[in-house]
């Protein structure tokens, strides 16, 4: 079952912040975040493997609440280059190693 991402779409002005959420009905051992720009392949941003873990990548960071089966992606001081569709991919217990279930994506548009 696909994880649920929210919001489906968000429009920001440069410099504004955004949060994208990913929620699963299954117990998770990992959450991946990817960004896909229009017409391009998805590109890996980060993996979170432990409950409560937070990781950062420039001004993009993420948290993973294993108990709530949720992850959030934080984009601070957004730049035009952040525009794209963000996908979370979840690895759950009982699934095959390496196999991810992706959400439907959140489309982020950053305007000047």
């Amino acid at each position, binding site marked *: 079952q696909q994880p649920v991402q929210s919001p489906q779409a968000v429009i920001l002005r440069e410099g504004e912040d955004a949060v994208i959420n990913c929620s699963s009905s299954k117990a998770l051992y990992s959450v991946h975040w990817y960004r896909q720009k229009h017409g391009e392949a*998805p590109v890996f941003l980060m993996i979170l493997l432990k409950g409560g873990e937070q990781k950062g990548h420039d001004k993009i960071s993420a948290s993973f609440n294993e108990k709530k089966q949720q992850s959030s992606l934080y984009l601070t001081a957004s730049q035009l280059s952040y525009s794209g569709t963000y996908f979370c991919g979840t690895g759950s217990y009982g699934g095959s*190693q390496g196999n991810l279930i992706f959400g439907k994506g959140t489309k982020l548009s950053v305007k000047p």
Partner: protein
Amino acid sequence: DVKVTQSSRYLVKRTGEKVFLECVQDMDHENMFWYRQDPGLGLRLIYFSYDVKMKEKGDIPEGYSVSREKKERFSLILESASTNQTSMYLCASSFDRAGGNEQFFGPGTRLTVL
């Protein structure tokens, strides 16, 4: 740099044709994946393979088969293409390790079935 290549960027086929989509990776990854991407539905896993000649069904395997004869190559086969298989097809690969399996994606093949 990790490279995942797909045989075609665009492909147009007729209903009933047999279609082969090829994917090659150059990083000696154990895992390889085929996804289809449709607007509003995200990435849905069709099949994946964790070793040569090994395969497992993903969420939407109906109408598809796969072949992995060599570690670097993973083929997706549409035995008899139908219009509802018109989609973007993405191949990905990753190492098989417990510490985390970043997936590297190919550029995609946009398949149109007429």
